[in-house]
């Protein structure tokens, strides 16, 4: 006990030294926690997006539908499957879809994509796509509207629904610039390239890089209620066309997802494609807890062996790869940080021992045995580590909490007309378990690091030590 109180007093005797060690430990802890939080933030977001925006937890299709989608490959025993899912407590939302590959045309462009016929109520409970609707571009599907369609920003571009019109009265620019752009006022451009070219012809390169982005932003417009005619093969094998009117434009972080999909009302698509009543191509299921996924998937497979049941990991293997990668990455980084920390502590403590040679020598001379000296050094280090770790924990938690709220922006700005390069926002997050593990690891590192200096202290010869001149 006396050792402990002595150790404690020693620490506060030389504030500077102690502060330095404590700060190192604190930094190590905070750094470790923050790194983990950052990594989890990045991965978590990506994976969250895959589940909550794109795929949901699991999807059910006719056996060969995914490999080669065809309108006639509708899901068998839909009613039994729905009934089965409805009684399962783990299931949060079920959303049935009709899925048809179609060719969409407008007066100026065309593109091929999957039309997804959904029920707005269940779909909005399943996916947070409505949070990705660009402000000012409209709204989510509404059952009361006539053949509405929700398309992506990419699709809007391909169909030339995304236009650029210079409206000088609505854009604050220096007089010199507005004079130069006067000739283009009110002119509408259907592609970004043509817009760029026209503006580059009247402005200098410098002006373009200064005003380009804001000009592009102000000129951007989506044609409201734009008409798109979709052509596809219906359930009877005939080529049919159907007009849809754009009700809103969405944009997620996955341009692949965006490009290939558009959302319409299920009843509209069923009517246009002449699908028999209540026939659908896929059921998407969202669970309350991700942990229940394997069980639910297994049960579905056993009960309905002739349909295809896939969880999001199988549907999007890249997500799984990514999270594995990130896990590895953070492990490596943590390793490095702990190593560096250990190193810093060893070094600092060694210096401290060196500095206290006389003091320690004296202690040994007045009778403190070597074992006690060892315990003393160890206790000091442990205390320092604990205090440092505690403060580090608090700081780390605070840092993560703050950045979780504000977000950290990774953005790269490109020249001229390009939009704000890509602003990825990361919201660091950390679970209680990891929090504790990191803190324990740091403390362990501190303790292990103390062993070497403590042993060094043991090797001091008391007589020599007292006479040390340093």
């Amino acid at each position, binding site marked *: 006990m006396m050792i402990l109180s002595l150790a404690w007093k020693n620490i506060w005797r030389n504030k500077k030294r102690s502060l330095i060690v404590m700060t190192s430990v604190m930094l190590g802890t905070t750094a470790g926690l923050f790194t983990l939080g950052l990594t989890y933030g990045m991965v978590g977001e990506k994976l969250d997006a895959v589940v909550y925006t794109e795929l949901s937890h699991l999807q059910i299709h006719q056996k060969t539908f995914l490999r080669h989608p065809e309108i006639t490959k509708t899901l068998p025993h839909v009613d039994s499957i729905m009934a089965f899912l409805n009684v399962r407590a783990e299931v949060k939302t079920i959303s049935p879809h009709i899925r048809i590959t*179609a*060719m969409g*045309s*407008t*007066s*100026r462009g*065309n593109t*091929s994509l999957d039309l997804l016929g959904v029920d707005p109520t269940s779909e909005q409970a399943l996916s947070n796509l409505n949070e990705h609707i660009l402000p000012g571009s409209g709204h989510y599907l509404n059952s009361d509207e*006539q*053949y509405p369609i929700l398309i992506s920003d990419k699709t809007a571009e391909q169909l030339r629904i995304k236009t650029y019109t210079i409206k000088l009265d609505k854009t604050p620019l220096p007089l010199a610039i507005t004079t130069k752009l006067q000739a283009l006022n009110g002119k*509408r451009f*259907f592609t970004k390239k043509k817009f760029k070219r026209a503006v580059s012809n009247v402005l200098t390169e410098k002006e373009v890089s200064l005003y380009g982005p804001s000009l592009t932003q102000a000129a951007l417009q989506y*044609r409201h*209620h*734009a*008409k*798109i*005619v979709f*052509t*596809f*093969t219906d359930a009877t094998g*005939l*080529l*049919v*066309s*159907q*007009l849809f009117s754009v009700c809103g434009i969405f944009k997620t972080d996955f341009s692949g997802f965006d490009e290939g999909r558009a959302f319409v009302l299920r009843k509209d698509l069923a009517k246009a494609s002449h699908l028999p009543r209540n026939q659908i191509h896929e059921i998407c299921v969202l669970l309350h807890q991700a942990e229940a996924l394997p069980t639910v998937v297994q049960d579905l497979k056993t009960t309905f062996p002739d349909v295809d049941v896939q969880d999001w990991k199988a549907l999007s293997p890249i997500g799984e790869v990514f999270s594995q990668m990130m896990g590895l990455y953070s492990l490596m980084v943590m390793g490095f940080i702990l190593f560096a920390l250990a190193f810093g502590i060893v070094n600092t403590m060694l210096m401290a021992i060196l500095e206290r040679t006389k003091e320690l020598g004296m202690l040994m001379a007045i009778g403190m045995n070597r074992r006690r000296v060892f315990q003393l050094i160890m206790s000091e280090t442990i205390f320092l580590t604990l205090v440092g770790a505690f403060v580090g924990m608090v700081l780390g938690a605070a840092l993560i909490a703050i950045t979780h709220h504000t977000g950290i922006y990774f953005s790269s700005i490109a020249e001229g007309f390009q939009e704000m390069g890509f602003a990825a926002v990361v919201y660091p997050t950390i679970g209680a378990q990891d929090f504790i593990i990191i803190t324990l690891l740091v403390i362990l590192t501190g303790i292990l690091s103390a062993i070497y200096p403590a042993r060094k202290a043991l090797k001091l010869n008391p007589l020599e030590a007292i006479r040390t001149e340093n």
Partner: protein
Amino acid sequence: MTIVRPKYKRTLKFKSWVNKDKKSLAVITAPAKEKGQSFLKEGKNLWNWNPTIHRLIKLPPSMMSQGWMGSDISNDDIMKEFSLEKDYTHHLNGEEYIEGQKCWKIDLMPLAQANVVWGKVILWISQKGFDQMKAEYYDEDLYLVKTHQASQLQKFDDRTLPSITVVIPAEDPDNQTRIQIDKMTFNHPTKANFYTQQNMKRLK
């Protein structure tokens, strides 16, 4: 048909037959590389026979918006030739002279649920021969997308018709498609099984 592009110009020659039931058949006669290819429009389907590979295919939806033989006239345009009648309201909007012909100017506005991409179409129909002398196609915001311009009236068989039609996209005036009729006959008798897939393979 001459297809004009900023970097090249290409000319095709073909023969086509249309009957009153709106079935039509066309066969390419030049250049040598494309010769022998035929197209059959029947009901809602467009078929293509290619002698090089000896295959008959039904054009899938993904090919509908492509230009026919690479021109500015899409396969879809060909299929929807008669949509101008049933999918629009028609309103007479005065008279104008096109190529020396006195024409009625007719505004066509699409019906609410019509499956058409246009916001408005204006047709100039000659009062003398009821020929379409000019057509303008507008998008929903009433910006001009393309113009079909007819000219060079000529006598074909027992009628006088414009022999040249040019399709000009408004955004890219360097791109054009020009169709010139060399010869045309009417009330030409055809055999019973003329508009069939089998016949496509035999056409020359």
